């Protein structure tokens, strides 16, 4: 099995308001098709770590490898391209472009990648929406659907370019248990059937227990790794 994501001694400091080390020498890796969750107390640095791993935050020490490429030190332009192609990100809050249709929201990252024709991209997007069971909402404006539906649209968008890994920062944090189960099932299927790697931050122990591995964080460090499966 090949390694998809590898963090080597990732550290980060915040200089404001006081100098404070939020991440301390974080090292771990995720393999292809692996479904990993991160747990830890609020404020222990989970989100900060995820922003670094997703290449949006470049202000850190240590090294980061993703899909065989070293990302540390790359230009913003190159990282944007990489993020577009290889990383799907799902936020806690359903971040959609509210003036666009659901379909367009899903299509945008692929249109940016520009590897397929608009027709093909539209077909792909409909397919992803169908996987998440919301293809009937495709032509509605993103602002017109419910919270649970929005989160599924965000997942469909994360999938559109067939990324190497999906990262989620408490993606089920705002959903009721039925919707949360739904999202978990979708993730599980993707990891089993599509060999997709997933790294999901969660507070929900029931959710985490069903993943392949739980990384436990405390005060900016990895304090343990468990597996219930």
């Amino acid at each position, binding site marked *: 099995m090949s390694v998809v994501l590898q963090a080597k001694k990732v550290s980060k400091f915040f200089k404001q308001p006081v100098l404070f080390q939020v991440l301390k020498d974080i090292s771990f890796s995720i393999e292809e098709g692996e479904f990993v969750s991160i747990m830890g107390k609020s404020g222990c640095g989970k*989100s900060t770590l995820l*922003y670094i791993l*997703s290449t*949006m*935050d470049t202000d850190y020490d240590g090294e980061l490898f993703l899909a065989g490429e070293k990302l540390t030190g790359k230009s*913003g*332009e190159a990282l*944007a*391209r*990489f*993020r*577009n*192609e290889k*990383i799907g*990100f799902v*936020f*806690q*809050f359903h*971040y*959609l*472009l*509210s*003036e*666009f249709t659901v379909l367009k929201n899903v299509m*945008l*990252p692929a*249109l*940016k*990648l*520009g590897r397929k024709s608009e027709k093909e991209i539209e077909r792909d997007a409909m397919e992803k929406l169908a996987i998440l069971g919301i293809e009937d909402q495709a032509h509605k404006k993103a602002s017109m659907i419910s919270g649970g539906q929005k989160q599924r649209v965000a997942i469909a*968008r994360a999938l559109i*370019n067939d990324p190497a890994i999906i990262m989620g920062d408490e993606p089920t944090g705002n959903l009721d248990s039925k919707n949360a189960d739904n999202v978990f099932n979708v993730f599980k299927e993707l990891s089993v059937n599509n060999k997709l790697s997933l790294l999901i931050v969660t507070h929900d122990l029931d959710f985490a227990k069903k993943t392949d591995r739980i990384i436990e964080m405390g005060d900016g460090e990895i304090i343990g790794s468990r597996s219930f499966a």
Partner: protein
Amino acid sequence: MTNFKIILDISTTFLLSRIKQSTIAALGVTFGIGTFIILVSFMTGLNSLLDGLILNRTPHIRIYNEVKRSEVQPVDLVSRFRNGLNIVHSIKPKKNQIRIHNALPLIESLRRDERVKGVTPQVAAKVFYLSGSTELNGLVNGINVEDEVCLFNFDDYIVQGSPQDLLKNKNGILLGAGVADKMLLAVGDRIQVITTSGGIVPLKIVGIFQSGLADLDNVQSYVNLKMAQQLIGENTNYISDINVKLWDMDNAVPMSAAISEQHDLTALDIKTANAQFETGTAIRNLITYAVSITLLIVAGFGIYNILNMFIYEKMNDIAILKATGFSGLDVKLVFISQALIIGFLGGLLGLILGFGVSVLISHAPFETEALPTIKTYPVNFDPLFYVIGVVFAISSTFLAGYLPARKAEQIDPVEIIRGQ
């Protein structure tokens, strides 16, 4: 470029979601560009009318013999007094002839000069127009009518009759409108003129001349060259003025300097003679551009404000775009293209508005005694103004959009996402 298409798609969606503000911003540009077009078309129309009034009929170089005092007095030539302070009181002008010595060879040599478009001689004759017992001061110029028409648009100022009638009639006169008015004379009538030597010559009025300058029209008339020479009792060698038109007006200054140097004549160039007209033109242009640029700056601030507001509102969208792989440059282009769309559409509408109002102005009646051949307001429909207008609109909106767009480019998505 697929990337450009998607960026345009995003920016138009953003614009349409704020259609009211976008429209207001665009109308600001419309107003600025429209005003620019109207002002510049009208002002330059007026400029060329006024310039034409003077410059078209003014020779680029006028050669004549000026009555002036000698620069060098006899005492200066005596070596004994050279180091003294010589004061000569009551210097009188040298007795000098008005005629240009050797005028015909000079005309020939000027005609051969390739910078010269045309040369035409004139003979000025002072006369009195005789009407009953009153005598009116007058100045009759002998001219080569054909030359004057083709070089100085002479026919523009003949309000009755035609210049060709003068050619056909050697006793003909094109009478100044002011003179005709005062003496109640019309085309076909006869007029008597008294020459300086006392002779009375009857002339036939073949046309009325109106320059628009009342002072001129009250004294000036035109006859054939030969007739003028007869009026002052001179032969056909007698020429008092030589008027030169050049291909390029800018040669007037050096050429006139050379001529007065070589031939000991006064050669007056158009720039010296009409310096005030260029100044007037320059100032009118300055006002036009200053007003237009001011309006565009105001429009630019409108765009700047609205884009800043858009960016503030779209903070989340910008963060999402960046998180899903759009680069800072892409985001910047999204906002710059919004500014450019506003500028382009607003500018285009401004051109249409400007053109429409200009057409209206150009059809508005404008009749004035002073400008006989003008019936409506002068408007200059130079396409260049429309090109400048578009360039103005695009570049000012680009500038107005650039700063907010750069701010959007630099937005850190992590900060926005964390802020939730």
